[in-house]
């Protein structure tokens, strides 16, 4: 069970006054079951994460009406997220009323799809759609699923169609109640009394978990999430102490008493494949800590699975701080695993932002505990995710090269970097949205445009120049690493830089210089004499507060909240030096944004 999800504690929290300076989010909840309880829980759980959620409650069982009417209160509310919760109890009632159920699941799906598409037409909100919990009743025993028209078959059918249909659309994420209910167990999940008395989706004890999952999804779209797991070695990745027991004396392997540790290693390796980077932080002699990886063939994880390997006698918070700085990620995106209570407490005390779960005494229980905490929520999975770990390893190699290269310019030139800059194209939208959501530090304005908004800018060839950049060098491919969104205003003669963000992995390579040259070339081509930019401060983006200054921009305005405006005449811009070569195979060029014909042609080809 996930800790701190007591229903009554959360209700009490929801009554508290909300500080006025919190980030606000507009969340609409539409359901065919009772929503009031859920809404209070959502408020309390968002508040825990420092977010003031303003919540719109749709009319009970009135999803169709609200979604299909462009003038409805739902759209007047201007939701950023629309959470749609469909109960299997309501589905069950409709099922029972039918004489013929052959087309029931398809019709139910179509009804849902109309709602998604109506919301998409009328709003840019991200939709969070629930799946159906499996029904508790079985009419054919174990044979139930073999009968195509049984309730459980129909629900299973509908769930798989919901998964595939939402996957085909942009900006819809799943709230997987089917899986959540299964984790809890259906007999505990459902409370038919509470359905009868108050149309409650599930037992009250589990409502907080539903709300927490909604919050987890929303936070993932906002760029929160674990990016790196820092793990201990002794009694964490293997049983025993390598310094005492030796590389062959430790307990590890697919059979026997080393199996729980073997499972932990498999779990971590899957996380690495999913794009989460791994690092070691162990109190050990460095040479001894390496030995199991070098000599014990039962080990699942290999040395090259880790982007950092720290084994020394320093305190762990200090070592984690070093790892964090090497990787250039936020402390709140680090998960720390250690069997030793003292180490966990030390890290919690000195680095409170780091996520340090309380782990069960028995390693065999760890994976269940970690999964229950839902630490690895994400909103997409792209080719870049799979690449990430190797990118960090390449980065480490580049740094070593930088140390030996001496002359930095020489080093940059030796990287043989190539860059591809282009207007957004459909096949990159997923990664673009992900970068928009995850970039915190090198992000001038931190506007989290969602999929629908990005697609809208991509299509609006007169109004917007939304650009992405991909970088590669002789060590490997960095993928899509920067986004610059421009808005030309021909009336005032200004090319406005609306958003500029970049992955910190590629700092100081010349990408910024290359892109700034590119921006001014665009301005020149469009006969816009002025380029303007904005910096909006957050707690994480101080590193780019003076970004525009070195390029020659003048600060034209500073608002009381620290927001600053910058401007530079195109005629005064000095072309920046860099060591990047344009990718020859540049199919869709940004200048096509105003040569509409050409853009249409290339988008047809795409």
């Amino acid at each position, binding site marked *: 069970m996930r800790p701190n999800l007591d229903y009554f504690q959360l*209700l*009490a929290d929801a*009554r508290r006054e909300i500080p006025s300076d919190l980030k606000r989010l507009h969340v609409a909840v539409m359901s065919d079951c009772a929503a009031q*309880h859920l809404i209070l829980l959502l408020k309390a759980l968002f508040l825990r994460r420092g977010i003031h959620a303003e919540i719109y409650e749709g009319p009970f069982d009135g999803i169709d009406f609200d979604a299909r009417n462009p003038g409805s209160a739902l759209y007047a509310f201007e939701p950023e997220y629309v959470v749609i919760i469909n109960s299997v109890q309501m589905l069950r009632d409709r099922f029972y009323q039918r004489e013929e159920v052959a087309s029931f699941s398809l019709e139910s799906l179509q009804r849902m799809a109309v709602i998604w598409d109506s919301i998409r037409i009328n709003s840019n909100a991200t939709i969070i759609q629930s799946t159906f919990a499996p029904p508790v009743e079985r009419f054919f025993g174990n044979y139930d699923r073999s009968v195509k028209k049984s309730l459980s078959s129909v629900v299973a059918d509908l769930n798989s169609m919901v998964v595939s249909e939402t996957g085909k659309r942009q900006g819809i994420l799943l709230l997987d109640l089917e899986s959540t209910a299964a984790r809890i167990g259906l007999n505990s999940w459902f409370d038919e*009394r509470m359905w009868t008395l*108050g149309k409650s989706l599930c037992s*009250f004890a589990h409502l907080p978990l539903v709300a927490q999952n909604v919050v987890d999804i929303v936070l993932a779209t906002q760029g929160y999430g674990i990016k790196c797991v820092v793990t201990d070695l002794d009694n964490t990745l293997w049983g025993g102490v390598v310094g005492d027991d030796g590389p062959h004396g430790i307990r590890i392997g697919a059979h026997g008493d080393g199996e729980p540790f073997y499972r932990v290693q498999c779990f971590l390796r899957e996380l690495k494949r999913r794009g989460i980077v791994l690092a070691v932080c162990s109190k050990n002699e460095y040479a001894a800590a390496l030995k199991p990886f070098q000599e014990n063939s039962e080990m699942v994880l290999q040395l090259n699975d880790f982007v950092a390997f720290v084994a020394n006698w320093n305190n762990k918070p200090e070592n984690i701080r070093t790892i964090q700085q090497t990787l250039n990620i936020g402390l709140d995106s680090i998960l720390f695993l250690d069997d030793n209570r003292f180490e966990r407490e030390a890290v919690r005390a000195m680095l409170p932002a780091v996520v340090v779960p309380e782990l069960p005494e028995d390693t065999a229980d760890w994976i269940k505990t970690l999964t229950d905490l839902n630490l690895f929520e994400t909103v997409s999975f792209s080719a870049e995710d799979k690449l990430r770990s190797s990118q960090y390893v390449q980065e480490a190699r580049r740094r070593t090269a930088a140390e030996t290269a001496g002359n930095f310019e020489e080093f940059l030139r030796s990287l043989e970097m190539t860059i591809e800059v282009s207007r957004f194209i459909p096949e990159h939208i997923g990664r673009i949205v992900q970068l928009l959501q995850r970039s915190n530090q090198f992000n001038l304005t931190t506007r989290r445009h969602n999929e629908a908004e990005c697609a809208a800018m991509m299509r609006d060839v007169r109004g917007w120049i939304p650009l992405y950049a991909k970088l590669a060098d002789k060590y490997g491919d960095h993928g899509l690493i920067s986004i610059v969104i421009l808005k030309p205003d021909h009336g005032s003669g200004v090319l406005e830089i609306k958003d500029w963000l970049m992955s910190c992995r590629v700092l100081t390579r010349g990408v910024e210089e290359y892109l700034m040259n590119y921006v001014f070339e665009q301005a020149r081509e469009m006969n816009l004499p002025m380029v303007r930019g904005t910096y909006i401060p957050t707690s994480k983006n101080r590193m780019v507060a003076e970004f525009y200054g070195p390029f020659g921009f003048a600060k034209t305005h500073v608002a009381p909240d620290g927001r600053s405006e910058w401007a530079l005449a195109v005629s005064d811009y000095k072309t920046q030096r860099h060591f990047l070569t344009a990718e020859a195979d540049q199919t869709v060029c940004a200048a096509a944004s105003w040569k509409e014909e050409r853009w249409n042609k290339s988008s047809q080809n795409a």
Partner: protein
Amino acid sequence: MEQVIAERLTDTFRDVFGDRAIQLTRSTTANDIKGWDSLMHINLIVAVEREFKVRFTTAEVMSLLNVGDLADTIARKVQKG
């Protein structure tokens, strides 16, 4: 017995409604307590079930008219249990 139930019930009401000033009598009904709507009614039932480790039937919940009914139902269940 009666007195113990009354005290624990008062505490439960105060927690659920977030109001330390609530005083209960046997004849207290939903009309007498601010915020006692159908939503809070279910919260109350869940909280009472947890406090007294009892479980009401759907019919019992629907037939409760006042705090006296609630206390009697609890007493009956606690004795049995």
